């Protein structure tokens, strides 16, 4: 009898999980469930927070319903660990029985959760990560992207540099897959001379050595992809080193998640994006006002893309009459993308990645003291990503 104590010790945890999972089975399909899986731990938490907040804001603005169906949103943290994400996403799909999985932020998590979700009954919508393999050879009918293909934002700066006549450019990115893709994307349209291509160790905080190299090389422009805290440090140190006269071109480095820390140091720097908070349409104005009122910060593209994901689901469910049972009808309705995006126009390519305009944006300080990116010029119109041709879907 006493030894069974040990047995009892091992079972309650499992029992507890079972209870929480059986409970969900009772709910029929009268409710719509959406699972959001993003990174909410560590330094990148601010990005996951934007996605969560942007999506929730959309659901709230639609009265808690998507496509007229009462919607429940479950938020899960992938901790930037792909193996944790796999288990958590299975929890979303099987225990919580979500109809849609929205996420993730990071490419390596996407690689890990793509198969578990697309093999299941749920549809995966990515509000950020858009890797090349899923845009091309491994495209899948259950996978939609509302953001972009990862290379595209970098291509904007490459084209801009080429058109502007910059002859010599210095490139820098962190030494990981996304960094390598960034510089490859830049070079796709830039035909001038690359003075140097520097890959810094991930998480590096002090760029004095690299900045000295840049100064010595005297490029016409500097392009970088340096997300998160790394970007905050780079921008500050770039100014402090007096390199402000060399045009600073970047993607995901000076965006609304880092601008509150970069402040005046980033003003005037150029970036590539598919949207900016000052975009001239009514829905953007309303979105930015509502977001700031609810969360106190200027929304960036992460929040915008999550908001659009909610609108996308809403439009698809309106088309199917609130039903998710007919998978083919649902997918077809999603692919139609019959909604008014915050970007104005939005449509999917054959690979279910967006076909959209891309802009050169400039960092500016608003009259109320906050910082945001603002549209400077359009660089690509209805841009289809370069990997779409490899996708077999029609």
């Amino acid at each position, binding site marked *: 009898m006493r030894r069974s104590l040990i047995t009892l010790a091992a079972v309650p945890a499992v029992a507890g999980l079972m209870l929480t999972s059986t409970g969900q089975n009772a709910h029929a399909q009268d409710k719509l469930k959406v699972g959001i899986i993003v990174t909410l731990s560590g*330094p990148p938490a601010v990005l996951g927070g934007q996605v969560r907040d942007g999506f929730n804001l959309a659901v709230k603005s639609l009265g808690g319903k998507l496509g007229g169906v009462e919607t429940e949103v479950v938020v899960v943290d992938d901790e930037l660990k792909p193996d944790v994400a796999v288990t958590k996403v299975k929890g979303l799909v099987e225990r919580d029985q979500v109809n849609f999985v929205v996420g993730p932020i990071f490419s390596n998590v996407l690689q890990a959760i793509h198969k578990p979700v697309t093999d299941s009954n749920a549809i995966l919508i990515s509000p950020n990560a858009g890797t090349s393999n899923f845009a091309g050879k491994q495209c899948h009918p259950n996978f939609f992207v509302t953001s972009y293909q990862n290379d595209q934002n970098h291509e904007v700066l490459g084209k801009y540099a080429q058109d502007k006549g910059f002859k010599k450019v210095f490139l820098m990115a962190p030494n990981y897959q996304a960094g390598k893709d960034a510089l490859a994307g830049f070079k796709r349209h830039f035909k001038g001379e690359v003075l140097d291509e520097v890959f810094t160790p991930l998480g590096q905080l*002090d760029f*004095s*050595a690299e900045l000295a190299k840049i100064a010595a090389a005297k490029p016409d422009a500097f392009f970088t992809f340096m997300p998160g805290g790394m970007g905050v440090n780079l921008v500050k140190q770039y100014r402090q080193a*007096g390199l402000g006269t060399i045009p600073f071109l970047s993607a995901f480095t000076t965006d609304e998640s880092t601008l509150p820390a970069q402040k005046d140091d980033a003003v005037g720097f150029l970036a590539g994006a598919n949207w900016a908070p000052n975009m001239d349409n009514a829905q953007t104005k309303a979105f930015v006002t509502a977001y700031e009122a609810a969360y106190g910060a200027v929304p960036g593209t992460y929040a915008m893309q999550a908001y659009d994901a909610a609108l996308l689901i809403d439009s698809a469910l309106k088309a199917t009459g609130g039903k998710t049972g007919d998978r083919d009808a649902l997918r077809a309705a999603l692919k139609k993308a019959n909604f008014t995006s915050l970007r104005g126009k939005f449509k999917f390519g054959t690979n279910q990645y967006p076909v959209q305009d891309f802009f050169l944006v400039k960092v500016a300080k608003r009259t109320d003291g906050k910082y945001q990116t603002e549209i400077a010029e359009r660089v690509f119109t209805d841009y289809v990503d370069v990997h779409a041709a490899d996708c077999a879907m029609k």
Partner: protein
Amino acid sequence: MSTALLLVQVLNGLQLGVLLFLIAAGLTLVFGVMDFINLAHGVQYMIGAYLAAMFVAWTGSFWLGLALTLPTALAFGLLLEVLIFRRLYGRDHLDQVLATFGLIIFLNQAVKVLWGAAPLSVPMPELLSGSVRLMDGLLYPVYRLALITVGLCSALGLSLLISKTRVGMLVRAGASNAPMVSALGVDIGRLFMIVFGFGAMLAGFAGAIVAPILSVEPGMGDNLLILTFVVIVIGGIGSIRGAFIAALLVGLIDTLGRAFGPQLLRLMMEPAAANQTGRSLAPMLIYILMAAVLFFRPSGLFPVRQ
């Protein structure tokens, strides 16, 4: 590659080294004197940075903010000592690892709850916001020169403190043989508290003065913690002199490796391979350095305990 660039990179390496020393000094003291693995040193550094961000924003002045941060970091360190660490002296190192690990998890989250997940910035003090022209097109912030000065003064001050004062003598004695010191009538508990508090304040001070040039975000201390351990292990645990020399070594090798590594490799292999190898080797350099040092000197360069 000009001599000017080489000199600039050496200066960068020295500055990184001095920064590492400021953070490592407190850790090596705590470890050396109290034989206590304080993994939470990294979060104490982070707390210092957050406190500085908060106080500077409140008071609008960098100096006032810094002045407020120091006693607060000290108080916070002492709080941790009384609540948690005091009970762990003399215990198995692994229990200390578990406790401080738990503390890291808790504080990284707490900081996010209190100040949000987005990175914060601290403005540079007006007095030190100028720049010096180091070479054509490159300005060097006066603030960084000030940092180097502060670091060097701290190193000097600490070593004088340890070797020339009574407290320093007690600290050295405590590092060699704590029970004996206690038997000789010194309140070892109070000594430990003083050392720990001082170590915590040093960590917080480092976090605060580094804030204007680095971003303040949750988890900022974690990777730095590993770097700090590398420094004190190379230098020899408990030795301020060791920490100083090791920090400079690590700073120089890391910076020069990143700056000139690919170029050096290009002398030996073709450009594409050189770049690739350089890129892969760069983050490993300090670990290779540490492994090499430990191979020849298993207790670091200047071990305190024989």
